[in-house]
């Protein structure tokens, strides 16, 4: 641990802010010749959209330093995963980035499939792509909608929330749940798209563009919105890479890194789409990149729906994929497999796998070490939020409090993913 002597001036203030918050020390202000205010932003604050705390040192309205404290909803997923059979880990992934649970679920299934060497049929891959892209749209809709709210424009948020609700209704038709979806299984999807699900999806595809355009008309060239977001919370590409940024936040800084293109999974190579990038890495660029990604995701869904192949919706992997429930009552093999899978009696091969998917916020990675048992020996989640949120103090120092709020909002820090 660093001692007081080793701290730089800024770190000294950080340190004192923490000490002061613990009631240990009173802030010294000689260095600045003015009285600094310590502001405790969070942990529960309407503007933070989740439970995280920032202790800010303020000179008037200007932020001198910030110390984030995280872990308020830490649930020890990595530890819990070490005792659970693979299929029981899917619900844990739901609760990481809960704005786009299907992406987390599919990412986890693909990791296990990679370990087991299971080949998923094309139809299931396309179905997964559709659900993942819907999830990405839902994720970005929330982020941009709430960014509007934080800049004082409530109406856009309401338009978009209606669309998110429709996406959740599609989830409901596909897997039965809405927010924490637990969608799909190791080896494919748990059921085919129903007629209702496809009808709802097609209807949504027809209606969504008009709403999205309306939203963009409200915000994209809105003078007030632009004044509030341009050059707010910028980060250079170099710093962003050094901080391990991925996803829309990195692309807003001008780096066209996208896991879907660089390491295609689940047949992403079959689809044509573009990676939007920004230039300044500021709040406005992040907003624009997310909007454009929504359109690109829409394009992918369109193509996937048009090309949706026929065939099975899951792999032929009886050791890992639960048999249909009716069969369990009638067929002995099905009963045995059902029992073995549910009781976690099937051992996985020994191996070490890293698989990553493009999550709503960036590269969502699963590093899995299997020692050949029924549970992972070690499972580490590379959670994009956790990694890029540490740049937050650097991004807001020198700006005003209201700018700090919208910077946080545009980074789309999801507490569940941050704390895991």
């Amino acid at each position, binding site marked *: 641990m660093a001692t007081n002597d080793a701290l730089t001036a800024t770190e000294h203030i950080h340190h004192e802010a923490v000490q002061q918050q613990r009631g240990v020390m009173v802030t010294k202000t000689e260095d600045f010749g003015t009285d600094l205010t310590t502001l405790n932003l969070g942990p529960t604050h309407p503007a933070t959209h989740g439970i995280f705390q920032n202790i800010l040192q303020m000179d008037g309205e200007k932020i001198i330093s910030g110390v984030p404290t995280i872990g308020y909803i830490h649930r020890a997923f*990595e530890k819990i995963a070490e005792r659970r059979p693979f299929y029981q880990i899917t619900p844990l992934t739901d609760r990481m980035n809960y704005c786009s649970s299907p992406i987390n679920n599919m990412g986890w299934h693909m990791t296990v499939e*990679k370990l087991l060497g299971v080949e998923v049929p094309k139809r299931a891959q396309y179905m997964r792509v559709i659900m993942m892209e819907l999830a990405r749209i839902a994720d970005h809709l929330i982020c941009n909608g709430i960014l509007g709210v934080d800049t004082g424009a409530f109406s856009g948020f309401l338009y978009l929330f209606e669309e998110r609700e429709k996406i959740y209704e599609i989830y409901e038709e596909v897997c039965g749940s809405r927010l924490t979806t637990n969608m799909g299984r190791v080896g494919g999807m748990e059921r085919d798209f129903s007629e209702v699900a496809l009808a709802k999806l097609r209807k949504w595809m027809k209606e969504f563009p008009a709403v999205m355009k309306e939203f963009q008309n409200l915000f994209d060239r809105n003078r007030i919105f632009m004044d509030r977001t341009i050059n707010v919370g910028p980060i250079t590409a170099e710093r962003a890479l*050094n*901080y391990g940024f991925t996803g829309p936040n990195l692309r807003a800084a001008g780096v066209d890194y996208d896991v879907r293109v*660089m390491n295609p999974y689940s047949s992403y190579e079959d689809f044509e789409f573009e990676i939007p990038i920004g230039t300044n890495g500021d709040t406005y660029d992040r907003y624009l990149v997310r909007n454009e990604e929504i359109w690109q995701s829409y394009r992918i869904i369109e193509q996937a729906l048009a090309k949706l192949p026929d065939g099975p919706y899951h792999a032929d992997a009886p050791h890992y994929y639960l048999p249909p429930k009716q069969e369990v009552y009638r067929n002995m093999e099905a009963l045995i497999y059902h029992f073995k899978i549910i009781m976690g009696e099937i051992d996985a091969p020994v*191996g070490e796998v890293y698989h990553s998917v493009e999550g709503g916020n960036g590269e969502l990675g699963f590093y899995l070490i299997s020692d050949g048992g029924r549970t992972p020996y070690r499972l*580490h989640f590379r959670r994009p939020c*956790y*990694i890029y949120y*540490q740049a937050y103090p650097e991004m807001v120092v020198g700006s005003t409090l209201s700018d700090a709020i919208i910077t946080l909002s545009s980074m789309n820090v999801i507490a569940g993913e941050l704390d895991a």
Partner: protein
Amino acid sequence: MNDLNTSPAAQAKAADYVKAHAAISNEQLLERLHSLFGADTFADVEEPYGLLTATVSRNRIHEILDVLHGEKELLLNFLTTMCGVHWPDNEGKELSVVYQLHSMVHNIRLRLKIFFPIADPVVPTMTDIYATANWMEREAYDFYGIIFTGHPNLIRILNVEDMDYHPMRKEYPLEDGTREDKTDLFFGR
């Protein structure tokens, strides 16, 4: 075709660009690593599921990551993730830190591991190379008790500060061992 770039200089430049950004195979990567750091630096070289993995000594890890960060050919300058692992049966090498690097230009990944005894869990920090290592190392400290020397602020990050143990170590069972209501006579859990 774009006929604006037909001059020999432009063609050569384009060829250089393609060469510089071409995909690198694991063999080429390993060869380059050997020429940079010496072949005996890398032990247990494997390619599980296509990802080049090697074990290096803890004394050299900082130097290796530092050189790779500034190296212009491989451009392995993105620290994707880093985590601790506990191997209680691995005598003298109970703890491990796994670093995973990524070259976005060549689209190649490299996983480097270091092992060290649990009695001496001291590792040099990477925060001077990667800003992102800061919280990753705090996480490894929090959960495995790995001390990163030179880290600017090595305190717990996700757990409460007054916790007096490192919960991801294998000796801490997930569930309370004194509970009897979960005992299962048939399956033993």
